[in-house]
């Protein structure tokens, strides 16, 4: 009988598989609570919104399963200094 191929990979390896794309992963193992260590690639795309729609579809079809979305590439481009915002409350 043919053995089922393991199509799961460490998250760090998945990060290296793609170049400047968002990747949707089904999480199969956690290192610690809330910290995925291994998973199965479900989709990859340059558009974050496309991955968001696939995430919604995945969860609608697979309640209870965990997904993880990561950006394979530089989340912050080299040479960019991040100075972000604060919010002001209206009252």
């Amino acid at each position, binding site marked *: 009988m043919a053995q089922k191929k393991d199509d799961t990979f460490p998250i760090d390896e998945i990060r290296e598989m793609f170049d400047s794309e968002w990747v949707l992963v089904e999480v199969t193992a956690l290192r610690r*609570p*809330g*910290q995925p260590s291994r998973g199965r690639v479900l989709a990859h795309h340059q558009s974050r919104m496309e991955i968001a729609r696939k*995430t919604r579809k995945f969860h609608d079809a697979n309640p209870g399963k965990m997904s*993880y979305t990561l950006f394979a590439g530089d989340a912050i*481009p080299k040479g*960019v*200094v991040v100075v972000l915002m604060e919010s*002001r409350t209206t009252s």
Partner: protein
Amino acid sequence: MSSWNPGRPPDRVRGTRKYGVLIVSVTCPGPIGLEFLVDTGAAMTVITPAVAVALGSSVVHSLRQERVAPVGKTLLSAPVVRLQSIQVGGHEVLDLEALILDLPPPLHLDGLLGVNFLERFRVTIEFDTETLILRRKT
């Protein structure tokens, strides 16, 4: 008055440090894992419009509009939603308000973990070990 509870070990959340800032994994209802930048300069937690789409019905209803003061820009208005929960490491915060806001295009991030989350804990950021440490208040 709240105080640090030495009886409970702190939760060490390993992240990644990119050009000076710390990025950690967070989990929203689904469960949906995402990567947020830890931002002690953001008064509120931020999710991007794409994350709002991924989260679906749990965030479709906007609570109100909030005025936002981005660095170097004029005031803008953004919708506020209530996240059913957000988990970082072993710690979960329920009913957290978050702004839906686009982050600058060169950044490939899903959100900012802001002060309205961080203030629930005694927080230490270890930049050298790329770790966010959350201690539950008593």
